[in-house]
């Protein structure tokens, strides 16, 4: 199926992007690896696509005192090649390997994944586990939103009209583990787990278990694996998908928790 007709503008500056985004029916186009399929299935019909891929302000990976700032336009492939990510946020590196396939990782972006907020995607769950800060820019200034408040519903985020997702900032953690169960290499997972741990404790987030990525708050605080498994049932009320019931998803989430537990529970 062919995409419906729409207009296209490549923003030359953030200022121009802010102006264009006010137009009716405008949508941001970054890597396009989720948006373009939806256009090709005529599931989306924007009037204007604003291509932001030329904006330097949204690119690059920078080490900052508080952690790592990853520009919205950083592709999965760039992230995979980054030493800074390897040192500061290896969870993202582990997660990126699960995202689709090489040709898609060459175009798909960190910002696009976070802004789309697909509950089955890898980065939103990582952002939640890592307590990332999402940086949103607007022509009137910048707004910083913690990941826990950013993902609001199914494909719904805290991005307000006129705002563009510019970057995400990730604090450094000591240990991390990313696991997922997908029936085929590169598929969206049935369930995935993004977990981190350091002296302040453990943070375990799940993908594929609800309308948003879900922070398993009670299980994260549990003192033992058995307790965590018990508590996970309170954290997660997974929605069934085409192939898996809610009970299956919860079971698989527990399987992942068991596998991740050792890494997340090493003595400090």
């Amino acid at each position: 199926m062919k995409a419906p007709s729409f207009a296209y503008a490549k923003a030359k500056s953030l200022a121009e992007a802010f102006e264009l985004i006010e137009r009716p029916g405008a949508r941001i186009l970054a890597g396009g690896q989720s948006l373009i399929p939806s256009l090709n299935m005529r599931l989306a019909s924007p009037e204007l696509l604003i291509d932001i891929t030329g904006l330097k302000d949204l690119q690059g990976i920078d080490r900052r005192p508080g952690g790592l700032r990853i520009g919205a336009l950083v592709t999965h492939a760039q992230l995979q090649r980054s030493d800074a990510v390897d040192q500061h946020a290896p969870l993202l590196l582990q997660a990126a390997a699960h995202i689709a396939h090489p040709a898609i990782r060459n175009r798909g972006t960190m910002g696009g994944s976070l802004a789309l907020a697909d509950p089955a995607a890898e980065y939103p769950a990582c952002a939640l586990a890592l307590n990332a800060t999402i940086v949103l820019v607007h022509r009137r200034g910048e707004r910083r939103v913690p990941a826990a408040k950013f993902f609001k519903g199914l494909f719904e985020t805290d991005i307000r009209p006129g705002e563009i997702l510019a970057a995400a900032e990730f604090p450094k953690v000591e240990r991390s583990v990313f696991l997922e169960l997908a029936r085929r290499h590169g598929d969206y997972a049935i369930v995935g787990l993004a977990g981190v741990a350091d002296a302040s404790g453990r943070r375990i987030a799940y993908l594929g278990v609800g309308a948003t990525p879900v922070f398993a708050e009670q299980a994260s605080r549990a003192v033992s694996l058995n307790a965590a498994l018990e508590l996970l049932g309170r954290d997660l009320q997974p929605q069934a998908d085409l192939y898996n019931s809610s009970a299956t998803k919860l079971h698989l989430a527990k399987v992942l928790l068991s596998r991740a537990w050792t890494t997340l529970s090493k003595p400090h």
Partner: protein
Amino acid sequence: MGKAELPLHAPGTKVDRGYIGESVPRPGLQRLLQGRGAFIDDLRFPRLAHVAFFRSPYAHALVKKLDFKAALRAPGVIAVLDGRAVAEYCTPWVAVLAHLKGIKSPPQHAIAIERACWQGEAVAAVVAESRSQAEDAVALIEAEWKELPVVVDMDDALAGRNVIHPDLGDNICFKREHDTGGVDDAFSSAVVVVEETFHFGRHTGVCLEGRAILADYNAGEHSLTVYHATQAPHMMQDIFSRHLNIPEANVRVITKDVGGSFGIKVHVYPDEMATAAISVMLRRPVKFVADRLESFLSDIHAREHKAKVRLACSKEGDILAFDLDDVTAIGPYSVYPRTSGIEGNQVVNLTGGPYKHQKYRAKMHVVFTNKNVTCQYRAVGHPIAVALTEGIVDIAAQKLGMDPAEFRRRNLIADDAYPYTFPSGIKFEKLSHHKTLDLLLQKMDYKALRAEQAELRKQKIYRGIGLASMIEVTNPSPAFYGVGGARISAQDGATLRLEPTGMLTVMCSVTEQGQGTEAIFAQIAASAVGVSLAKVKVITGDTGITPYGGGTWASRGAGIGGEAVLLAGRALRSNMLDVAAAMLKMDKAELDIAGNAVVHKLTTEKKLELAELGRVAYFRPDTLPLDFQSELTVTRHYTPRQYGFTFTNGIQASLLEVDPDSGFVKLLKHWCVEDSGTVINPMLVDEQLRGGVVQGIGAALFEECIYGPDGQLLNGSMADYLVPMAGEMPDIVCAHVETPTMQSQLGAKGVGEAGTAGAPGAIMNAINDALAPLGARVTRMPFTPERILKALKKVD
């Protein structure tokens, strides 16, 4: 003995087989490797119009009103047509066959009139200057619908509370019963009786190239040229001729490169018929290429069976009887012209097929539902028959405490028992079950694997080994379709022409879809005539050029088309020797052809280059005797007739590991031992087997068209319908036993179905073998992690 004058499998003689049996790479592949193929969508035509279809969003609904006003005003739109408009140019069809007694189906139009019977059935067509514009206009069609009761489940269909086609009286398209007698006695006297019900998901072919047709009507000569991604060009020529009312000779079907077919592209599709009709109507070339979303809704689906099978066995482990009850749901129409009764019919014919029991009873129902239509897809019926046979055989072996391989050895029909008539009535010329079993066990080192399995179980690693013996229908005679009244050729023909330079042109009615048909024809032709492979050019897929024939389906290309090529090659060689004898003034019997030259038969001294023979025959026949006319173009045909089908046999094994925590299955290795008679090109045969195995793995682990209770297809995209990808597939070891068919000089049997036929059963048995110590069993394909977890009672 001279080159290939005896049957290639002649016992007790040494025959020069030339290229036959050699793994030569397929000639002419650089074209495809460089992206320079000619798939339908690659062709460029002036004034080409594009068609897109408005398809029913409902599984069953009356079309109360179609409003085309806005669509007709859309940019680039040439025409918007409903079913009645297209019916003026294309007559409807009814897909029944006389030998499937009692089969019934309603008339079907190219575009549905008044009523849509499945989600995705086309109810209007938009013709525009581009595909995008056609789709834009489709979105502007306004329709009023009245929803009708939907029949989705096969049991509901059978119960008949809602009848989809009231004129037919019930939802039963076809039913068949078969009984040798004595089955009840066998079961009542048996020490071991086992029973299980197996479910087979509905799946589809997912050819990477969507269905494609470009029809070009020439009003000046009332002729239609159809560029068509089809497996059966002559069948389609007949269909276009009869349903569009154009004389047969004025219809030419050209099949260039085809991007996968597997049975998907051997049927008559309403949207393709509409495209041809629209070309006639608009007097211009019109193209339709099914996009991926409409492929899922309109390419034929297959399988969807529920089969209860019982097996009776003596205490020594001898199988006494099979008892089968199969139901299959086919959508709202039997598919033209092969019908949708064949798959169920095959299940009845083939169940229990490898074994020597004498008592067999089967009951089978084919029912209508409001889902997409199903029809013959690769290995038609075999995956069902093999899996339920091999599944119940393993259950019996388990109950007896016998090793599955030993249980099979005890019960497989003996290799010296042929010819043999199986209790379902089918006849086997010669099979080699025991040889293939022995070779398989040796190749996989069965004993070592069993020992390793036992060792690993102690570490709570659950590996499974699954076997699946099988028989397969290949080289079909007219008994398949022709006797039922279908105008589908069971014979094929080949024309061989010696070119003046000594090259050979082969034209054959069997088509190429990537199996390597053209390569093996080149091998056979080169061997039969005595030229090198590089001298042979093969042309297929053009009703205007090739002899008449059936095309490519039911594993008939090598066995039937190949024999025609062999016969034509031998005849041409004889004619060439006549020319050489005349030129050289020698006795023909003294001459032979080898290495692109006429040689002395005994001394192999070169007498004449073929280029010289060609030069004289074509340009200087004045130098030949006055009463001599050279005949350097030869046509021969072949039809298998002694047996209804030339059965082949084989056996597969799967080694896999089940993770009882997650329910995930990891495939470790797969083996396939096949007896397809004379192997013409082992590399191509192995690739047929491997590709087929992976399609079978798809059925076992991944693929299922999932419908909601309202008849909506829920996973109709490549993101949601899971096909096997490289990452999960195992390496597949192939080996061969060669039992040539004596019906032909070539001795080749088919091989296209084998992999797909056996793999699902082997995988199922391996999973159940892995699960056995945990007391679980799965019987519903595909075996998703959830289904395995449910069997393990890890989730409800």
